[in-house]
């Protein structure tokens, strides 16, 4: 017969954290396909590498912390982290980049804090930021989408070639043939050209921008799916995208030659991925709905500021980390008004 002290409720919804994670994995599929379509096999290979190494590191950490390994491996959170990391780094970065990245994400950013659910910073973004400042060369060498270097998908590196580039790295001429700056980088280091001139003259933008638009659309699809399945709420993505759109429109309207247009900010780079997959990471985001809106606004504004005046063309990772570190503070000031209270309990009061 039943145990005593079993607390109510005695039923629960068929719902599980692993299912949530699987849905997120599913939602990254369109973006994975789009990346593979435009940039070749690189992303797929990175993904396999990231997933294997992340699971491995996770298992080692669990082992060291004397936790049941399979139980936790099954929750799929390490895979989500791995995939987001793999899709964020350049498709043809050398293998050790992604392995160091998984190590940082899983060991430093996640397990030092106690594993799933405990980490204050987004593991994938910690890894990305660390890689970016440690290996700027490898991390800024994006290859060009096939629309720029040939007229068909065949122009990209074949699968064996891709493997060779990633694992041996010797094939420098191969890399050089493919790499180029991303649109955001081009716009940032435009060397005196106006925005319009850049759009007209630089092939990445004039011809290749559709690749980026396509990828953004794929992320957007995944995001909408997640909202539809109630895995995430609309608050953070909506707040982030609208504030980014607002800021970029304002500045662009003020000085169209010097500031990038809103379409670039929204449609190019990691914006969509960040909005739907990263700013929504439940663990490291703010807690309440209102908090999520503040979080989103912060991320959007910081992305714009860093992209426009800072040193990093794609600022998503830093913006996310900065807001991650502000999230607990935001939580203090965005506690919702509870039933029966005239005002919400804001601010500190946890002390005494």
């Amino acid at each position, binding site marked *: 017969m039943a145990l005593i002290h079993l607390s109510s409720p005695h039923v629960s919804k068929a719902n599980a954290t692993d299912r949530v994670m699987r849905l997120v994995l599913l939602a990254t599929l369109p973006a994975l396909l789009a990346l593979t379509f435009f940039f070749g096999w690189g992303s797929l290979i990175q993904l396999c590498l990231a997933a294997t190494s992340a699971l491995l590191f996770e298992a080692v950490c669990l082992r060291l912390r004397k936790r049941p390994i399979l139980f936790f491996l099954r929750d799929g959170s390490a895979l989500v982290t791995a995939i987001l990391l793999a899709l964020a780094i350049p498709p043809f970065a050398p293998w050790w980049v992604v392995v160091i990245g998984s190590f940082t994400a899983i060991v430093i950013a996640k397990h030092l804090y106690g594993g799933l659910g405990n980490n204050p910073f987004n593991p994938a973004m910690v890894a990305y930021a660390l890689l970016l400042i440690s290996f700027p060369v490898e991390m800024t060498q994006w290859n060009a989408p096939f629309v720029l270097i040939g007229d068909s998908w065949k122009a990209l590196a074949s699968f064996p070639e891709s493997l060779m580039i990633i694992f041996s790295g010797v094939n420098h001429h191969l890399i050089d043939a493919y790499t180029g700056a991303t649109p955001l980088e081009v716009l940032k280091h435009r060397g005196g050209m106006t925005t319009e001139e850049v759009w007209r003259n630089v092939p990445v933008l004039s011809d290749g921008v559709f690749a980026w638009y396509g990828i953004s659309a794929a992320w957007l699809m995944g995001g909408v799916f997640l909202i539809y399945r109630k895995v995430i709420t609309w608050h953070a993505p909506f707040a982030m995208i609208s504030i980014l759109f607002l800021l970029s429109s304002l500045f662009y309207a003020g000085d169209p030659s010097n500031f990038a247009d809103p379409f670039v900010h929204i449609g190019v780079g990691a914006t969509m991925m960040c909005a739907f997959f990263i700013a929504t990471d439940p663990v490291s985001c703010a807690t309440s709905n209102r908090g999520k809106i503040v979080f989103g606004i912060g991320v959007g504004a910081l992305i714009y500021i860093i992209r426009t005046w800072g*040193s990093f063309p794609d600022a998503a990772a830093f913006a996310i980390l*900065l807001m991650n570190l502000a999230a607990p503070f935001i939580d203090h000031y965005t506690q919702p008004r509870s039933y029966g209270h005239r005002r919400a309990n804001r601010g500190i009061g946890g002390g005494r």
Partner: protein
Amino acid sequence: MNEFLLILISTVLVNNFVLVQFLGLCPFMGVSNKLETAMGMSLATTFVLTLASVCSYLVYRYLLLPFDITWLRTISFILVIAVVVQFTEMVVHKTSPLLHKLLGIFLPLITTNCAVLGVALLNIQKQNNFIESIAYGFGAAAGFSMALVLFSALRERIAVADVPVTFRGAAIGMVTAGLMSLAFMGFTGLVRV
């Protein structure tokens, strides 16, 4: 105006005293366990830092320079700061015993907060004028306060997390500060100096 905005952005974000310049770390690690205390410490430090900036400027400009004894700057600044802090401490102790106890040993230790002497020395190194000195001191304090307050909120969250025993306490605090510093690297380049 623009000038001051730049100084503020530079000291608060880009060259954050704690996270990038490594000044004022002891109170940063020591008083960040509770948000409430952190806020008290922030206020105290802001006050002292701004005041120290002013006093040290005056001492440098009107005592040390005229007599060409600039090599006495360390000792004279620290003397000024120590006195200002001690005076503040006495006043706080008398007027608000609770605040005094909350800040514990750290109020006298504001004297030995590197940020305070650091701001005085950097003011000279950067040849800031009087107004700039104030702005710089205030900016440094604001940057310190921001980092401290955010960090303590973060630490409160970490305190209920399942951190491995070996890392609990100062160790995870350091790692967190490192990740904060990593995040702040995102501001690199906002202001070019």
